[in-house]
């Protein structure tokens, strides 16, 4: 079929032909077309089916407000459901399919719903489907769900990339119609930083849709010339294909630029869309207005469209929906469409004007005071029935009907910060209210200024006011300045089914029923009938629904109120908001200096926050992780092992008040810690719960190096800054994180000293006397590299932690391995670390779960009452010190081989197993290759007094019951002889 509905002229490139497919059928189009205009050109009127009754639907509009003409665009993983044909820029090879129909668009089985529409009235589902109760889940709901939705997802990962960026300007102009262009010229020539954004791919707005003249130029030529000048100004940035989706606090606007949607395929590395956060001093909304329909019997047939849309299709896209067109209007603008189509040789069946005094000085028939009362045509309009003022009826043969019910200013963004539009009687429409987002003003049709001259003028004025320009604004071109003449008219009385919200199938009757049942506030109306909840967000239906509600309520429209609009202005792909933060890049990945070495060793890694840490280091022949972990534990306790602990937070605390500062931050005392010594520190939140634990090493009188757990590094630093700046502002303390600067390794096991003696330069004496347990100091290694040495132990063995500048971490680790060969040194990972700390009874993440106090963890004595420290006071509240509070204990199964589970609950051996008799829970559980037994740590009511007691560990979730005994948490070397050796 060859574009039988093409007209002359228009802004399309006839020299190039593009081919596209719709529902498997091939058609041709031209650059400058949208899918919508191309379908019309090829005389395709039936494009989709409605949501509820599956009524045949065609295009209603020419813009992003389109409720009916929505399709599935592209195929495979790039399939895009619910895409408006009116906003799809044509490209060669474009492929689209109709949706929400089966088996085919023409013959849709669920169209049967339409026959039963009486039973499916608004809210019917709230009143039924209740008996028998089980049927809702099993029958009714699945039925409803299958019918729900319009388009479908591909279920494949979206292969495209998306970017997010930031731009700044003095003035953001939203919409590049006459008002926006004039505002941009005014501000641009004055030298302001301007961003002009428009959702269309051609700037100019309605100027591209009209035949009128500006000065002696054709409107679209004037627009093109203005755009040319603007693009030549360095301080003006034009952003076509960019929808400003929302007005957020403090002048930040969200905008979506469609950089790739008009391309058949994206160039390598280029994004499909970009989410811009635009930071503005001022913004000017020039978003124009949207023509609204009139509701009448069967007003939803393919071919029944907005009059202004017909005009745009004809003037800009050189397309007519049919060779024979009628118009139904309540205002003069409808006649403008008739005139333009007539001039292009389209037959005008008649203009049906509800006004008795409608102008008739045209060379086509005008039916004054008449109304369209019905339409016919199964898959497309064939004729309309008109009620004449004298009561007679006329039928008009036509393939398209242009409807014009007046214009609604696009006030959406003015509502995004809960500003409410106000009713304008003259326009019979809502215009922006006084309560606008700070910095935003409105010009042109969006502000109710409907003539071209008015738009140009208010655009220029808007720019001058927004920027307090002193320069004289440019002269305005001569343009039409016709007043708005209309008779408010919302729907034709007495019709059985007249559509208000065409996508969601909400009729005039539904609105009336909603009132009848008491759903009378606008919000109730919306929610009860789903009016305006479809993908077009009610751009063509909300006001009509409101007007009907006002009529039945006997109130004025403003009395009934308006629903405020929320972002986004038009729907935005979820991926656009995500940008690059997906897949592996969802969060930054933090690697330790010896990561690449560990990888060579075949380490298995685990995510710890954003870090990747070696979990264990499997050797050839080890088939189960337990083998590797058991070996690492045995080998470390038997000789020596090395563990990368770079991820621990490290904070440099300096200043003459450093010691006193730590005294406040930690629950235990630090003032008297000697230089060259390290101390375990327990940090509480102000509410008395344990926040974190770590060590503080006193490198000098006024210099501490503090370590935190990996998980809490950031929050502890933030907390310390809070204490420093907000609580004790005059303390002489300086903080800085050094986590990244040092690669730190734990060297643990009876041979750790021997190994380190081969690494640390000989002038440093590591003997137990010279460098005892908890000693710390600056040393040099491998012939003079500066390093820090701490004699601290998490494993319970004789152990050290040694730190070197990060760039040398990899080399040091390799050196430790070679020098350690004589001791069969092994690297161990976080699993072995975890096993050894449980064997030693050290509390860690699972115990420091934010609900445990020092008392719970058996560290109550550490909370010094002789000084002021964060959390000390509230840790003494009555319920936190009751005799039967949870206490940390060791847990051993009576049968060593029996597995115990972290997260299992503890019950008395006799007595019921239920929440009411819960005695506590297991926090950590491991297999100890040293004790050849499963062991665990747990929190048990008054546990400290119950050592030796037998209990039942139950985990119904994992179907487990084990008899266990409560024991001391210190399974290995309770006296701590090893770590002091």
């Amino acid at each position, binding site marked *: 079929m060859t574009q039988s509905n093409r007209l002359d002229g228009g802004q399309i490139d006839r020299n190039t032909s593009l081919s596209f497919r719709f529902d498997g059928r091939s058609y041709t189009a031209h650059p400058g077309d949208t899918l919508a205009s191309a379908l019309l050109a090829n005389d395709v009127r039936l494009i989709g089916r409605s949501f509820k009754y599956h009524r045949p639907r065609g295009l209603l509009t020419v813009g992003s407000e389109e409720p009916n003409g929505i399709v599935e665009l592209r195929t495979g993983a790039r399939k895009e459901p619910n895409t408006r044909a009116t906003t799809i820029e044509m490209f060669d090879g474009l492929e689209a399919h109709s949706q929400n129909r089966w088996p085919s668009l023409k013959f849709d089985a669920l169209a049967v719903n339409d026959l039963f529409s009486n039973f499916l009235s608004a809210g019917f589902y709230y009143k039924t489907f209740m008996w028998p109760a089980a049927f809702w889940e099993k029958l009714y709901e699945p039925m409803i769900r299958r019918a729900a939705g319009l388009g479908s997802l591909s279920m494949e990962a979206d292969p495209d990339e998306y970017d997010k960026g930031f*731009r700044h300007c003095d003035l953001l102009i939203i919409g590049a119609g006459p008002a926006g262009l004039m505002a941009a010229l005014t501000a641009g020539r004055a030298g302001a930083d301007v961003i002009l954004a428009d959702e269309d791919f051609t700037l100019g707005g309605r100027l591209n849709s009209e035949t009128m003249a500006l000065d002696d130029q054709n409107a679209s030529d004037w627009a093109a010339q203005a755009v040319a000048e603007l693009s030549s100004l360095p301080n003006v940035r034009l952003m076509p294909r960019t929808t400003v989706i929302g007005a957020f606090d403090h002048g930040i606007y969200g905008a979506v630029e469609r950089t790739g949607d008009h391309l058949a395929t994206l160039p390598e590395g280029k994004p499909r869309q970009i989410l811009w956060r635009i930071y503005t001093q001022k913004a000017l909304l020039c978003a124009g207005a949207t023509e609204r329909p009139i509701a009448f019997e069967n007003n939803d047939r393919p071919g029944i469209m907005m009059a202004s849309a017909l005009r745009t299709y004809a003037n800009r896209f050189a397309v007519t929906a049919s060779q024979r067109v009628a118009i139904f209007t309540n205002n003069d603008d409808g006649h403008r469409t008739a005139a333009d189509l007539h001039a292009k040789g389209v037959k005008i069946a008649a203009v049906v004007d509800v006004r008795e005094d409608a102008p008739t000085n045209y060379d086509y028939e005008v039916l004054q005071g008449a109304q369209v009362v019905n339409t016919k045509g199964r898959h497309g309009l064939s004729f309309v029935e008109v009620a004449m003022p004298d009561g007679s009826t006329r039928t008009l043969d036509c393939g398209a009907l242009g409807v014009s019910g007046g214009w609604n200013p696009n006030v959406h963004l003015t509502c995004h910060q809960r500003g409410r539009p106000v009713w304008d009687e003259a326009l019979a429409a809502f215009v922006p209210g006084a309560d606008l987002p700070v910095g935003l003003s409105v010009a042109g049709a969006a502000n109710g200024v409907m003539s071209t001259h008015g738009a140009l003028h208010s655009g220029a004025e808007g720019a001058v006011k927004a920027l307090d320009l002193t320069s004289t604004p440019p002269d305005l071109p001569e343009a039409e300045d016709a007043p708005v003449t209309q008779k408010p008219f919302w729907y034709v009385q007495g019709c059985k089914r007249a559509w208000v919200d065409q996508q969601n199938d909400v009729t005039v009757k539904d609105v009336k029923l909603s009132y009848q049942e008491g759903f009378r506030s606008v919000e109730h109306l919306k929610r009860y009938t789903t009016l305006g909840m479809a993908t077009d967000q009610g751009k063509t239906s909300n006001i009509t629904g409101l007007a009907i509600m006002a009529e039945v309520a006997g109130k004025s429209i403003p009395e009934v109120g308006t629903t405020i609009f929320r972002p986004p202005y038009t729907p935005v792909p979820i991926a656009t908001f995500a940008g690059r933060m997906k897949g592996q890049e969802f969060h930054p990945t933090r*690697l330790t200096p010896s990561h690449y070495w560990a990888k060579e060793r075949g380490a298995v890694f685990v995510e710890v926050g954003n870090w990747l840490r070696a979990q264990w280091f499997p050797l050839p022949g080890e088939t189960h992780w337990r083998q590797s972990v058991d070996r690492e534990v045995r080998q470390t306790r038997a000789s020596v092992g090395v563990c990368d602990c770079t991820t621990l937070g490290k904070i440099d605390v*300096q200043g003459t008040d450093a010691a006193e500062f730590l005294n406040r931050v930690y629950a235990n005392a630090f003032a008297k810690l000697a230089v060259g010594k390290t101390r375990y520190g327990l940090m509480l939140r102000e509410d008395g719960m344990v926040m974190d634990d770590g060590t503080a090493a006193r490198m000098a009188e006024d210099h501490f190096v503090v370590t935190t757990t990996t998980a809490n590094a950031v929050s502890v630093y933030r907390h310390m800054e809070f204490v420093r700046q907000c609580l004790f502002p005059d303390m002489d*303390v*300086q903080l800085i994180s050094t986590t*990244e600067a040092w690669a730190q390794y734990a060297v643990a096991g009876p041979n750790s000293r021997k190994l380190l003696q081969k690494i640390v330069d000989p002038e440093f004496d590591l003997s137990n006397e010279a460098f005892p347990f908890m000693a710390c100091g600056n040393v040099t290694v491998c012939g003079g590299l500066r390093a820090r040495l701490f004699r601290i132990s998490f494993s319970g063995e004789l152990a050290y932690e040694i730190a070197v500048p990060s760039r040398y971490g*990899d080399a040091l680790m390799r050196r430790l391995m070679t020098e350690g060969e004589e001791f069969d040194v092994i690297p161990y990972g976080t699993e072995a670390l975890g096993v050894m700390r449980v064997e030693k009874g050290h509390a860690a993440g699972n115990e420091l779960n934010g609900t445990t106090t020092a008392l719970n963890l058996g560290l109550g004595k550490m909370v010094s009452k002789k000084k002021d420290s964060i959390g000390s006071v509230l840790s003494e509240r009555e319920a936190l010190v009751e005799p039967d509070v949870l206490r940390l204990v060791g847990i051993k199964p009576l049968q060593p081989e029996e597995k115990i589970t972290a997260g299992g609950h503890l019950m008395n051996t006799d007595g019921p197993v239920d929440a009411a008799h819960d005695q506590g829970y297991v926090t950590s559980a491991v297999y100890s290759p040293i004790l050849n037994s499963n062991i665990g740590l747990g929190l048990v009511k008054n546990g400290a007094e119950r050592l030796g007691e037998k209990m039942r560990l139950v985990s119904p979730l994992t179907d487990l019951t084990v008899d266990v005994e409560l024991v001391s948490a210190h399974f290995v070397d309770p006296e701590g002889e090893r770590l002091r050796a």
Partner: protein
Amino acid sequence: MHDLVAITALGGPEPRVDTIGGVTCTEVPHIALASVAARMGKESKSTKTLAKLIDAPTPEIGRWTGATVSAFWAGSDQWMVEAPFDTHEDLAAQVEAAMGDAASVTEQTDGWVRFDLNGDNIPAVLELLCQLDLRKVSEGSAARCSIHHIGCFVLCRTAENYSIYGPRSSAGSLHHAIVTAMRSAL
């Protein structure tokens, strides 16, 4: 002299270099860093001493100054001193000696990875990465900002030359973000 061999933040023996459409992104490991934080009540003394040390006025808020040894503003009464690694590996010690009891000095050399961007149209890359108002960024600017959730410093050396400092452990993610933005924007 010790015999341990350093690797770069991206894990290689040599710095990584990527060139995409007129802009080159270079990993710069040969830099020593030390932070300087004035002691309570010794703010002005710190400022003066630091100025001597870098032989230039101590940088104001959001600026960097100096030549071979330079410094940039890192927080109230806090600065980061930069110097060539080969000649100043012990920068922290040198700065500490110079500052005496006026300030707390901490070695930061390996806390950071640095990427230098050279070429024209760098703002087109940066506007995809950070929230900075690039209209206000000029030669001498040093701003803290967040790039793909990574806390960074962005220094403008000249219109065609920027330095980006990010936490060393995130070097890979930061590099990926920069190069991806270069592919997208250039």
